[in-house]
């Protein structure tokens, strides 16, 4: 595993195991975009591929295209010393629909035949009660030409992400809703009886708690009132005390975060709504999350508040105070979690304990991408003009494209770098989808290399 050390720091062993067991289907001709995508997937550890080649039937895998970097597709497979399986067939429009259930994702690259899109749209329009139609994994469509390219990602079921890895994690200290153990911890610390040295070693949450406690109940308890209280505090504190500076800076963390609550409640509501509307295939991860989301609604009906996950931010403090405080928060989270597990045991006993722990730890970070109800050919209705032009060029209807001189030149310059970029983005979205970590694009982007812009939008 040491080979993967630098990426395990992004998604951990869990993410890596999803990658190494995933089965990917690629549809498209043998071109730089396809080679680069395959390369970018094999390097991080994907091992199982089907390639449905849409090139002319002769020379299915050899290089008769001077633009290709790898002479032979097998050279790409060798980038992983472990065995990589690639099964190659020619695309045909009569592939049985049951075939698609083998895959976690389909990647459709640079096709120029609209009948492939019609094939999938036909599957999507089959009646929902036809059980065989249950199987269609997420689809990525991508293409590059000159200095331009696009990536479109389409889900047919709600896609959940638990480990979203926000750049700035949000902590909820809920000091306005103390539980007995927190109250006990705080009551032991009497500000008027602590000496100067201990005051300077108190974690800032103690000041925030004392402020909320001191503000009379008939006054509005807000960040401002906390700051006022801190400003008038009669204690041996000088302005250089880091803990006191932090108390002022982070006073907004004191209160139960109703904004987060609203966001989470909306996600839960939408998720259940979309789930009830679709009976299409979904992967085990999404399936587990949906079940836990339903349990979590039961939990909220009874306990009302989004629970804490037991983590508190680092803060200036004497070790003992901090460690004890951390224990108080962890214990609260654990005991709430046991109540939640009581509900899951009744409703979905099959979900592994580790998964429930992961869900619990990341409730504040949960995100989901809505499934798309539109057929794929709706891409032609896009309001993004560049995207529309790229589609016309891709499918050979470029008569519809108006080109100025600069645009024309941008289309004919060597496009290898652009293929590399689009393949990089497409493979990155695959990594995000398969690991269920980091939020994927919803649901399309266009790369404009002339202006260095990447525009994201929903179709």
């Amino acid at each position, binding site marked *: 595993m040491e080979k993967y050390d630098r*990426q395990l720091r992004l998604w951990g062993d869990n993410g890596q195991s999803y990658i190494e067991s995933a089965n990917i289907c690629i549809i498209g001709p043998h071109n730089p975009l396809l080679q680069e995508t395959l390369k970018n997937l094999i390097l*991080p550890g994907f091992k199982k591929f089907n390639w449905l080649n849409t090139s002319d039937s002769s020379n299915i895998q050899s290089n008769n295209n001077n633009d290709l970097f790898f002479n032979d597709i097998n050279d790409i497979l060798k980038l992983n010393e472990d065995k990589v399986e690639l099964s190659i067939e020619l695309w045909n429009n009569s592939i049985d629909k049951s075939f698609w259930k083998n895959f976690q994702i389909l990647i459709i690259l640079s096709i120029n035949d609209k009948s492939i899109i019609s094939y999938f749209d036909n599957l999507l329009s089959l009646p929902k009660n036809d059980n065989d139609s249950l199987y269609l994994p997420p689809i990525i469509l991508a293409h590059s030409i000159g200095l331009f390219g696009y990536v479109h990602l389409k889900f047919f079921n709600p896609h959940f992400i638990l480990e*979203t*890895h926000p750049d700035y994690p949000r902590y909820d200290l809920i000091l306005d809703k103390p539980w007995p153990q927190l109250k006990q911890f705080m009551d032991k610390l009497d500000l008027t009886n602590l000496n100067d040295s201990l005051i300077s070693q108190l974690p800032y949450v103690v000041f925030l708690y004392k402020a909320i406690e001191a503000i009379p109940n008939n006054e509005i308890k807000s960040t401002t009132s906390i700051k006022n209280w801190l400003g008038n505090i009669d204690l041996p504190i000088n302005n250089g005390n880091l803990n006191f500076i932090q108390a002022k800076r982070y006073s907004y963390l004191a209160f139960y975060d109703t904004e987060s609550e609203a966001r989470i409640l909306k996600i839960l509501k939408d998720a259940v709504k979309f789930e009830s509307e679709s009976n299409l295939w979904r992967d085990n991860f999404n399936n587990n999350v949906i079940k836990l989301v339903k349990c979590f609604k039961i939990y909220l009906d009874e306990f009302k508040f989004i629970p804490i996950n037991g983590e508190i931010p680092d803060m200036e403090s004497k*070790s003992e105070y901090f*460690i004890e405080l951390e224990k108080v928060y962890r214990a609260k989270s654990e005991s709430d979690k046991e109540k939640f597990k009581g509900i899951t045991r009744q409703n979905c006993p099959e979900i592994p304990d580790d998964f429930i722990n992961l869900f619990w730890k990341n409730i504040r970070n949960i995100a989901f991408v809505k499934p798309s109800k539109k057929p794929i050919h709706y891409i032609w209705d896009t309001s993004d003009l560049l995207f529309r032009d790229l589609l016309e060029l891709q499918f050979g209807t470029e008569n519809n494209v108006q080109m100025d001189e600069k645009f024309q*030149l941008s289309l004919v310059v060597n496009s290898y*770098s*652009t293929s590399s970029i689009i393949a990089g983005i497409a493979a990155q979205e695959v990594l995000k989808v398969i690991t269920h970590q980091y939020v994927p694009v919803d649901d399309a982007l266009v790369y404009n290399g002339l202006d260095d812009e990447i525009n*994201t939008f929903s179709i």
Partner: protein
Amino acid sequence: MNYNSGSAITIKILILGAGGLGSEILKNLIPLNKIINEIHIIDFDTIELTNLNRQFLFNENDIGKPKAIVAKSYFDNHFPDLDINIIAHNEDIFNLSMDFIQSFNFVISGLDSIEPRRFINQKILQLTKDSNYNICIPFIDGGTEGFKGHVKTIIPGITSCWECSIDTLPSIQETVPMCTIANNPRSIEHIIQYVINVQFTNANLDDKSHLDKLLQLCIERANQFNITIDEKKFNVNYILGVIKKIIPSVSTTNAIIAGQCCNMLIKIYYDLLNFDNLKNFSIYNGSDSVFNYVYVHQRNPNCTVCSSI
């Protein structure tokens, strides 16, 4: 610039770094054989196992060998008829002379450290100044970290230079006061900092027995301060990540950033850009949807490198 669209002027390019980004850049330039006749690639590092998750020019047999040399030999083996002359330098970038640097039309960097970039930037700006604008070598700098990356394009004397943006770098990690680390550790990171800076200062991070000892010392000290250790996460690799400030890295981001660097070169060559208001900095972030921000980084009038040019 000298390059008019359609002209057949051939150019010579210097690539700094033959790691994940440098290899991607080199690969992307090969199809430009009609406009490029020579590529030099310089790197002083040797190949390690942890490079291979994003390396397509190296394999496990190459571990321990110099990156630049192995990268070149890949092309010797796979492209025997290639009409671009590739020259590898297993050398320290700081040893490059002005004469050497001025023989290139472009410099593209795919490095992971700051100082060599500052060095090259200073030399390139100096060349433009000393030659009274006769020499103007575009410097295109790519960098990645996890799912994020940047491309900075420096046209000496016209756009801002690398040094102009030095203040925008994230402060080299938020430093925790030493008294916290010594007296009030609160996290396993604080423990590791103490062990490596106070208890075991001569630890050799390449020696397995030293790493085991480090791990042991960390566990002991964590226990002493009642700091809980997540046994699933806490191991030698975790400690190394904290000590070496290891930057996460993945093939996909390298492909995206290297591609953008090379497209910048193409646009400069074919005169597709307007230098006067060039959006010379771009930032990519793929960790939450896909976000790309491109903007004009203004020149810093007090820049120590370019203010007099």
